[in-house]
């Protein structure tokens, strides 16, 4: 391994560590799961313990898009726009059965899983998922961020 590779790997790890504990999330709340999102975000379960407590209500300031609740075909272009507005690096959590697969709503109105519209990193099952499940999903995402190749286009461009 060359010296540069070694430095780059360590830099990747450091960057991943930094990124995974400073997730600014944008909750795209549409439906029932929003109630459990509120519970998770509030004092009882306290998502802030895991470094994802800062809710940003503008997609331009967020790294993590949490799609919370059913996405219908009427709403699909909106979700796509919100996703496109986010800056890289960005991650997506599909929160709840409806976003994972359409859930119990297999009919004319509902998108059968948001991965038909945008790419998804972590799927959290449950209808709605309990807050513990959400926290587990968040930890899985943090693990993924830590171990993935980090994007540092900003450094290469210079």
């Amino acid at each position, binding site marked *: 391994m060359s010296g540069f590779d070694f430095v780059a790997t360590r830099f990747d790890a450091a960057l991943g560590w930094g990124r995974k504990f400073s997730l600014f999330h944008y909750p795209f709340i*549409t439906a029932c799961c929003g109630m459990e999102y509120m519970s998770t975000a509030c004092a009882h379960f306290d998502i802030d313990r895991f470094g994802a407590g800062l809710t940003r209500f503008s997609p331009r300031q967020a790294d993590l898009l949490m799609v919370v609740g059913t996405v219908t075909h009427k*709403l699909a272009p909106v979700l796509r726009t919100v996703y496109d507005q986010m800056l890289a690096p960005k991650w997506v959590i599909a929160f709840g059965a409806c976003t994972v697969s359409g859930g119990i709503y297999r009919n004319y109105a509902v998108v059968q899983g948001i991965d038909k519209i945008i790419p998804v990193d972590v799927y959290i099952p449950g209808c709605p998922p309990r807050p513990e499940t959400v926290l587990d999903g968040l930890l899985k995402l943090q693990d993924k961020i830590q171990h993935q190749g980090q994007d540092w286009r900003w450094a290469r461009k210079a």
Partner: protein
Amino acid sequence: MDPRTRLERQARPASLLLNMGPSHPAMHGTMRIMLELDAERILNAECEIGYLHRGFEKTCENKTWFNLLIYTDRLNYVSPLINNLGYAMTMEKMLGLAVPERAQLIRVLMSELSRVSDHLTCLAAMAMENGAFTVFLYMMKAREFLWDVIEQTAGARMTTSYIRIGGVRADLRPGWREALAAAVRGTRAVLKDVSGLLDRNSIFIGRTRGIGAISREDALSYGWTGPCLRSTGIAYDVRKAHPYLVYDRLAFDVPVGEHGDNYDRYSVRMREMEQSLRLLEQTAALVPEAAPLPAGPVLEPDEAIRASRRRRASGRIRLSPNLEGSEKERQPGLMTPDRPVGVPPKEDAYTTMEGLISHFLFFMNGKGIRPPKGDVYFSVEGGNGEVGFYIVSDGSDRPYRLHLRAPCFHAVAALEQLIRGRLIADVIPTFGSLNMIGGEIDR
């Protein structure tokens, strides 16, 4: 058809068109408000809903009477148990069922727990959007207290499907009295704190008092019910006007407002929570202690299933009272004896041939619950007002048509009028106080 909206067609060339939502921090749920502005003044507004239209009514037409219960949970997802209740009672009216007293009392408990959590969520969101984040955290804490009681009994926090046609699914769990008393105590303390934070808070009053006001005539003309209607001074409450369950035997007041503005809607909801807590205490005192289960040897479920392969199992099988079902000794107090409208006891289904057959017969296509032909309307008092179900049956195993009368549909229909002529900032508290719930309004 002209693809432009009415607002776009009618707008003056000089005015600014602004779009709020469907994904906007204050549009909890998804709704789009289009505004025609002169600086900050709203000249005209138009609302667009339907972003959470999940095809509830169409789906129900394709599900059996028993199976569609889970979809009713997800209508007004802030108080799912009241929706269960509305559907179950509509079906009971159609089938002519009488529900045991104990089940009725449990239903009242669950309705009132849901009502408090509904109002808590509405006011929490409304307060947060006006900058009172502390109130949000406090109220979410109180909601957790109540959901803990629901979870102990029903086995799930929100979408419980606990109230079934003909009764309830399981008995209250041992120790529920203490849990409920603690939850009521905790919620009272939170309400007191919130009152102290908001009631005379000049920022909150400045954003709510006199804003979003509606006259009684207009409120009726828009079909308002529930806390929104009561804020205008009309004391219409389905629990008083058309009593159901045991509400006619319970003492509670119907709080009303005066001006029909945002502050009155806040204050009516706060006082209604007090009344609901009062109802919870009264009802808890009325629920008799459960009779002890018969003595004798108790088999664990897997033990009983093993034994039943060789011979008919004897003795009682231990079942968790909440998660897997309810012991069949408990069923007489919880389910109507009239006709098999509930799932047959799990003990029998797993250990006897007759039980298994009745279980299959209940769930098979074309079998199960079969109401007579006809149409029926029944309503209960939900968190937002009159939750009505209109059901048409053609005598088959699934509904011909099922329609929900969503209370917040009518409330939100008035939003355009409420914000016209006001400032942009007034949209937020007005929208918050109407408690728009996506699952209910869009179905």
